[in-house]
């Protein structure tokens, strides 16, 4: 008995010693890398809730080095982020989410709008977000939950979206992109130019769509319009009859074995495409890049009907105030100041403030990613791996060509409840 006790004692001592060592180490390393902010009374920590897409370790590291703010990532899927905001609003400080979820988040009262006046670069944010047009003035498609429809609130505590600019911004824009179909040109062996090809019986058993109901149904709607079967008033806000029609076409395709599988997760989409299980499917830009980096040909195919776009941005939890709120502004301002924007652009996304991102990229990088020019040197990912050899051009071309051809935006429909039930029916068919 006494022997056991001694052992425990020793264990505890070792443990304490270890802990003290670790603490010393932490203090030491803190003193080396960030002397100025060790002086401040409390550590600046922000809990950052979002999807894995934007939560790069490099961004957190760079942010800590530049501002002294420590970012603690809370990673969840798109659906779970929304669920968490609704059910546990105090479990995060900064929220990184997509504009289409605002229809659910804003009425819940669990998020706070940010003040546009405190965002340094706010006036430099691309007009894609604020006016629905390209920097050159060209109007872009606004079906669905386009960001400019839900960008402003009527007041600080309001849950009503304002139709004209106010200083209360629901989400400070950060990143967006235009999505289309990914294809395997080596297996298809002919040009693809229309969304209609997704349900072409030629690709029976080799097609896939995204298994997030609200997004999957919009891809289906792109196909329905492309085949000329129906023209929607708003693909992102269908009537019940339109939902029925779209789901009927999808169901017929499913029953005839058109789809190999549906995917929900970034890596699933990469695996399906890389293994050749599918040859045509809805996809995200970095997933296409990932397939290509495995040496497998894959194209993010521009289509004549246009792109389905998405956009995300920052806001804070309703529980954030005082110093935390100041850090949140500091973080958002840092995020828009260029380094992070360049980082996002190099992954194939677009940053909200183009001018600052441009200043952080080489002319060749900017030419490849944003202007549709052939790369002069090898194009590298943020982690240094080679994405494209010199001479390559980006799929879909320039920013203006891609964003200028957006047809609709990810959305939550008014008839969402009905659509979700129909989706379950579709899976059961």
């Amino acid at each position, binding site marked *: 008995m006494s022997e056991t006790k001694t052992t425990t004692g020793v264990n505890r001592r070792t443990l304490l010693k270890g802990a003290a060592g670790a603490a010393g180490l932490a203090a030491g390393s803190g003193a080396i890398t960030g002397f100025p902010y060790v002086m401040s009374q409390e550590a600046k920590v922000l809990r950052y809730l979002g999807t894995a897409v934007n939560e790069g370790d490099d961004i957190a590291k760079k942010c800590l080095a530049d501002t002294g703010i420590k970012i603690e990532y809370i990673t969840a899927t798109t*659906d779970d982020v929304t669920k968490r905001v609704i059910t546990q609003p105090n479990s995060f400080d900064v929220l990184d989410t997509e504009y289409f979820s605002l229809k*659910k988040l804003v009425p819940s009262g669990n998020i706070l709008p940010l003040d546009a006046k405190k965002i340094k670069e706010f006036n430099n944010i691309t007009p894609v977000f604020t006016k629905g047009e390209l920097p050159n003035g060209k109007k872009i498609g606004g079906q669905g939950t386009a960001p400019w429809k839900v960008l402003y609130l009527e007041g600080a505590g309001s849950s009503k979206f304002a139709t004209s600019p106010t200083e209360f911004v629901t989400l400070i824009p950060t990143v967006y992109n235009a999505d289309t179909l990914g294809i395997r040109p080596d297996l298809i062996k002919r040009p693809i130019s229309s969304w209609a090809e997704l349900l072409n019986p030629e690709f029976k058993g080799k097609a896939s769509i995204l298994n*997030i109901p609200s997004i999957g149904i919009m891809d289906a709607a792109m196909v329905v319009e492309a085949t000329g079967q129906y023209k929607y008033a708003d693909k992102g806000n269908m009537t019940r009859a339109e939902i029925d029609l779209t789901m009927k076409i999808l169901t017929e395709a499913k029953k005839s074995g058109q789809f190999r599988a549906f995917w929900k997760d970034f890596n699933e989409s990469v695996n399906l495409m890389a293994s050749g299980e599918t040859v045509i499917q809805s996809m995200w830009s970095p997933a296409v890049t990932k397939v290509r980096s495995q040496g497998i040909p894959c194209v993010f195919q521009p289509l004549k009907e246009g792109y389905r776009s998405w956009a995300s941005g920052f806001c804070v939890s309703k529980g954030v105030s005082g110093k935390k709120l100041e850090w949140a502004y500091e973080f958002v301002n840092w995020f828009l100041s260029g380094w992070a924007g360049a980082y996002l652009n190099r992954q194939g996304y677009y940053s909200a403030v183009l001018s600052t991102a441009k200043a952080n990229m080489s002319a060749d990088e900017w030419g490849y990613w944003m202007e549709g020019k052939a790369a002069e040197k090898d194009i590298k990912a943020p982690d240094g791996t080679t994405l494209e050899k010199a001479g390559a051009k980006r799929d879909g071309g320039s920013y203006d060509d891609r964003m200028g051809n957006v047809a609709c935006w990810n959305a939550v429909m008014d008839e969402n409840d009905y659509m979700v039930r129909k989706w379950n029916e579709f*899976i*059961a068919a």
Partner: protein
Amino acid sequence: MSIARTLNDARSELVAWLQAGPMMLVFGLFFLLPLALVIIVSFWDYNEYEIIPRFSARGYTETFEGCLTELPNLCTILKTYLKTLKLCFLVWAITLTIGFTVAYFLAFHVRSTTWQIVLSLLCTIPFWTSNVIRMIAWIPLLGRNGLVNSGLQKAGVIDKPLEWLLFSEFAVVLALVHLFTFFMVVPIFNSMIRIDKRLIEAAYDAGATGWQTLRDIVIPLAKPGIVIGSIFVITIVMGDFITVGVMGGQQIASAGKIIEVRLNALHFPAAAANAVILLGFTFLIIASLSRLVDVRKEL
């Protein structure tokens, strides 16, 4: 004398309550209370972003939408349950056959206890990696360009890849059997090991054939293990949506999937209603199984 006995009885009753107390508390707090909440919420109303605490049977009526009007076609919920039941039955039948055989081998053919332990530990190898990894590992094996297809093609058995190997009911059943056979092996083995060997010797002496011994002695005495194993497998398969999702390419409906889709859309009361329906359904199956064997008595 009688007073002393009453006191004694009262004391032992109190001790019994105290002994059962902690378990009851855990059971009440972490099972009955949440269950009651789920049932209550299932009768509430909801909108796109919140639960509205006001009575509404909407979660249920919408779930059974079209069940009468669409006859003779099946409505979504019936189709889904039919599919889930079919998968459940197949997995149950296969895991039972394999589980029973493995347990029989372990209990009657392996003589030394050491080897019995070693071999049953071997059965746990599939559990050394996570559920999700075990499922993903099937893809390079069963895929269109997977090992099985390329092997068969090279051997000249088939000339084009078999599509039904992956993202199909076959794949779902295969993965579920692989995952859950162990849950059948353990309780059946546990029952078999307790069968008095002399009974089997007596049967042999009395001239029973191997088949008769199995039918009249081993199976009846292993019944508690079979029922417990069946309860494990059936409850897990009824509620599973991850395996069905990954192996079925998200194209096969399951009761759990319906709940997941509703939860993701923040329709909590509708999800709760579906959970209650699933619970009721599973409860019916378990209740009918328990009629076959009084598990409590047998234990």
